[in-house]
């Protein structure tokens, strides 16, 4: 149990508690807008900033978990200044329309402005004008100007109802909240966003301009609209002060809001329950007694007449009652008793038609009740039930079930209950004036005494409740919060693609293996037939190698998309992908599917041929460069020798450089053809960067080639056999410096951080691929990852012994086991560099453009040149090899 000191007071809280929750537990409120206990933490309002000792900056209390010995100050000067500054920011564009705003009186902005604000603004420019009174849904109105972008409503629609109607549009100080095109905020829980909204941006149509909140009295109650029994707060009151002073009676229910009960309804209620009171107040109730044919009568006479009629009918055996299952237990009991004493047993509860359920709150909503409005029954059975209910008409001609109004109703109800009162020991229940709603299921269950004639099936309701709890728990859990932040914190260019970054081809397994088997079979088939088959074997082997290499490369790309995000998560104390499959391992598949199915948007202004060609031109050279890299030793397959390299070229090193140098065209063409400034700048930067660093890269390769005396990769690797000190980077060639230069230049050539200026998201949105989407966008990323793998493989080949194990191979080890080991060594070395790429990404900040050029031309280039000179001397005087 961590102990922390908050404003001088030592408290002990459960591990994992956030500072804000810890403060709440001792009754100290830290001001906040975006935090809500029922929603994932977003941390975007910056109102809950507090000072933590030893932390360099103020931290957000809603996200920062407490740790033992933490010293928190919530009232220091620094914190107060931060709050005042935040309030000033919030109010920059906020209209000062409290006098006409429905939120006035319960507005967090109002409260905090008084409590934490400075009372003045330094902002003199015109405020932005946005849409007011936007009709966003059946019950909700939006005022965009009043929104402070806390994102609570967005998170509610995304995470609780999972309907996702709301979103932020535009960026920066142009950000507005709105509904997505073609959508309406019509989910059955839409009213909750109004409660969530800390300001007056979202208001309930049914409450807008009805009354001021300070005229309201709140009464805790339980909603009776369905079997859930949500805890609600019923607000009653007059419409305005004038009416109160005049003594006018206008005491009605004005609104119903949820009351927190984590075990039943959490923080929410459905719209049906929220607005059920409107039905009750329609004024359609029986308020005065009437004799048959509509002649008014006083209650005593009417009841006497009714009683006489009942007795008469009962004697004739024609009396019966069908009761609503929504009646209170006591009422049901009274009815049953009444008919029992009349000598009739025909008092039954109407069978409950299967109502509407969802997996959030609504349980068995009676299709004849309030829930009938505007909701579509889901199954065929429900539709049929509803239809049947409509045809039957009102099932209760006696109209009991609603509460009689206060005027004159009291005596009548008492009289009706009269006969059973003695026996049952139950007291009659009346709704208090304008206050408490009809009692719900929970009360029913708790009641002592005999069960109702036929209990209104509490079973499914209880099951539903359990389900709710199951769903509610993880929503508040830590993992969930991490996941939410993962999305928020992921790199912006990834966000373009919708939160997740990439693009893959499925797991590494199946495809390559299958292809290789298919590719090699012909070799065996013709192998027996003499010299012609040699050529056939070579062709088949080459094809097989190509398929394996391309398959492994693309598989490696999809694996890298996962590794990149997991390692990033590791370094930033968050989870990274964790939703799809174990540890998020299937995320690349999901990404791949998404990229294939997404709409491919081509800018209208784009130069289409080059725009379409660019992604391919980016990916193909990257794949080609790998052709000359030996990924294993010479192996014997089916009695024939073949080398594990696609093309054993004499000038293989040059080929790799040539292919890599062509990759820049894809980037430049993408940048130019998109007809976007961001893209063009990205393309420009890319070409300048590639040319600059190609020099250092080429020179470092030249030194390695000097040492090896050949441009043939297969030979270069063979020379580095034996102990790992024989590798070119070490005593084999004294090329450690060259290796470092190659590595740095390699980072620049692959556009990776800290050299990712061609797509610097802070300045260029996403650089050269800003205007790309779907599979074309994915191809750029595949190219980037293939380039990473290829350049690592080249570094391994030139400097780190390629597939050599780094230890002398013993006599006992030969054949397949050895080859497998050597291929694994190659893969392992390359994999290490992949990790290095991600590691460096989160270790070094991005270079500025002049820094990039300085490093390339004034740093790496002279160093590489000197390295070539020194290496040449070493070779000339036979120091190496």
């Amino acid at each position, binding site marked *: 149990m961590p102990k922390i000191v908050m404003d001088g007071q030592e408290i002990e809280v459960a591990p994992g508690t956030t500072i804000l929750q810890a403060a709440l537990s001792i009754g100290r409120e830290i001001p906040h807008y975006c935090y809500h206990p029922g929603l994932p933490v977003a941390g975007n309002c910056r109102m809950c900033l507090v000072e933590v000792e030893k932390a360099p900056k103020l931290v957000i209390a809603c996200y920062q978990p407490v740790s033992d010995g933490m010293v928190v100050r919530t009232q220091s000067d620094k914190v107060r200044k931060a709050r005042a500054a935040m309030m000033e920011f919030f109010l920059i564009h906020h209209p000062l329309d409290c006098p006409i705003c429905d939120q006035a009186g319960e507005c967090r902005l109002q409260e905090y402005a008084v409590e934490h604000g400075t009372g003045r603004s330094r902002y003199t420019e015109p405020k932005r004008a946005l849409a007011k009174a936007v009709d966003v849904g059946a019950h909700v109105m939006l005022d965009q100007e009043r929104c402070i972008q806390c994102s609570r409503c967005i998170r509610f629609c995304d995470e609780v109802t999972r309907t996702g109607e709301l979103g932020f549009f535009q960026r920066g100080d142009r950000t507005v909240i709105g509904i997505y095109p073609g959508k309406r905020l019509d989910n059955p829980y839409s009213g909750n966003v109004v409660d969530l909204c800390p300001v007056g941006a979202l208001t309930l149509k049914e409450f807008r301009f009805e009354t001021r909140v300070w005229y309201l009295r709140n009464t805790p109650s339980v909603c009776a609209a369905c079997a859930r029994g949500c805890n609600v707060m019923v607000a009653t009151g007059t419409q305005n002060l004038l009416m109160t002073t005049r003594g006018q009676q206008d005491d009605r229910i004005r609104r119903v809001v949820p009351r927190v009960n984590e075990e039943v309804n959490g923080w929410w209620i459905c719209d049906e329950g929220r607005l059920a009171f409107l039905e009750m107040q329609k004024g359609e109730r029986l308020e005065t007694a009437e004799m048959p044919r509509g002649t008014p009568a006083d209650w005593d006479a009417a009841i006497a007449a009714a009683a006489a009629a009942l007795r008469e009918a009962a004697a004739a055996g024609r009396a019966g009652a069908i009761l609503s299952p929504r009646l209170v237990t006591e009422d049901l009991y009274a009815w049953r008793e009444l008919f029992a004493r009349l000598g009739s047993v025909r008092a039954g509860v109407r069978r409950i038609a299967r109502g509407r359920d969802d997996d959030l709150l609504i349980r068995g909503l009676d299709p004849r009740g309030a829930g009938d409005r505007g909701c579509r029954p889901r199954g065929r059975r429900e539709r049929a039930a509803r239809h049947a209910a409509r045809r039957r008409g009102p099932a209760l001609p006696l109209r009991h079930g609603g509460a009689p109004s206060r005027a004159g109703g009291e005596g009548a109800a008492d009289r009706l209950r009269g006969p059973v009162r003695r026996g049952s020991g139950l007291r009659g229940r009346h709704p208090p004036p304008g206050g408490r709603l009809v009692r719900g299921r929970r009360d029913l269950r708790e009641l002592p005494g005999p069960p109702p004639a036929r209990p209104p099936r509490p079973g499914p309701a209880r099951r539903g409740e359990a389900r709710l709890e199951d769903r509610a728990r993880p929503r508040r859990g830590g993992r969930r919060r991490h996941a939410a932040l993962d999305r928020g914190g992921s790199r912006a260019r990834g966000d373009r693609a919708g939160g997740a970054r990439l693009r893959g081809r499925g797991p590494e397994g199946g495809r390559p293996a299958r292809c290789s088997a298919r590719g090699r079979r012909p070799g065996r088939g013709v192998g027996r037939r003499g010299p012609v088959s040699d050529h056939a074997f070579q062709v088949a082997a080459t094809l097989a190698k190509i398929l394996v290499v391309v398959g492994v490369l693309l598989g490696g790309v999809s694996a890298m998309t996962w590794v990149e995000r997991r390692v990033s998560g590791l370094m930033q104390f968050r989870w990274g992908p964790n939703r799809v499959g174990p540890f998020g391992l299937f995320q690349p598949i999901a990404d791949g599917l998404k990229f294939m199915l997404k709409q491919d948007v081509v800018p209208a202004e784009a130069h289409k041929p*080059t725009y379409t060609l660019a992604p391919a031109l980016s990916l193909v050279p990257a794949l080609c460069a790998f052709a000359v890299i030996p990924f294993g030793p010479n192996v014997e397959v089916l009695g024939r020798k073949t080398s594990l390299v696609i093309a054993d*070229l*004499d*000038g293989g090193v*040059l*080929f790799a*450089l*040539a292919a890599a*140098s*062509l990759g*820049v*065209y894809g980037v*430049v*063409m993408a*940048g*130019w053809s998109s007809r976007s400034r961001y893209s*063009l700048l990205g*393309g*420009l930067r890319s*070409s*300048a960067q*590639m*040319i600059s660093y*190609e020099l250092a890269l*080429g020179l470092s390769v030249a030194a390695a080639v000097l040492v090896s005396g050949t*441009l043939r990769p297969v030979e270069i690797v063979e020379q580095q056999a034996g102990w790992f000190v024989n590798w070119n980077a070490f005593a084999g060639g004294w090329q450690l410096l060259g290796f470092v230069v190659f590595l740095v230049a390699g980072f620049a050539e692959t556009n990776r951080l800290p050299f990712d200026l061609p797509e610097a998201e802070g300045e260029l949105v996403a650089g050269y691929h800003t205007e790309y989407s779907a599979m074309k966008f994915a191809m750029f990323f595949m190219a980037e990852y293939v380039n990473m793998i290829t350049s690592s493989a080249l570094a391994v080949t030139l400097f780190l012994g390629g597939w050599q194990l780094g230890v002398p191979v013993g006599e006992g080890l030969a054949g397949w086991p050895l080859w497998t080991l050597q291929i694994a060594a190659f893969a392992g070395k390359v994999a290490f560099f992949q990790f290095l790429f991600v590691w460096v990404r989160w270790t070094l900040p991005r270079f500025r453009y002049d820094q990039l050029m300085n490093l390339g031309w004034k740093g790496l280039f002279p160093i590489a040149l000197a390295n070539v000179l020194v290496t040449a001397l070493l070779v000339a005087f036979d120091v190496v090899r």
Partner: protein
Amino acid sequence: MTLAFAILAVLAVASALVVITHRNPVICALALAFNLVAIAGFYLILDAQFVAMLQVIVYAGAIMVLILFVIMLLNLQAEARPRSSGVFQRWLAPLGTAAFVGLLARAIALEAPPAPGARPPGYGTAASVGQELFSRFYYPFEVVSLLLVVAMVGAVLLAKRRL
């Protein structure tokens, strides 16, 4: 081999035509880069793999990227419009073309095609090119190096006059 030559020839000529006829300088530059790669393909057919790779690295990979860079940086809009050619050019161009074609035809007619497959082992590799360069063509190579140094110094002098 003949098929490869035919394909490469069509591509090379087509891209060369695009270079001189297209109005958009960026497309021209891209076509030129493509043309250079196609010519590298010719070198490959002739077994000159070292030259082919240098062609790609130096011309397509470096020089053309620089040219593209400059075109995009300057955003040459004026070049997009065709320039009106003068009277002399209009009359002299066909003459010059005819003369050039005549020369080419004469050269092809005079020179017998080289016998195929008569190449020594190791022909066209980096090693053999290096051997030639630093023995038979030593002086030309050094003269060209000097020329390049002079060009570089001159470029720096012009570009950074205030240095």
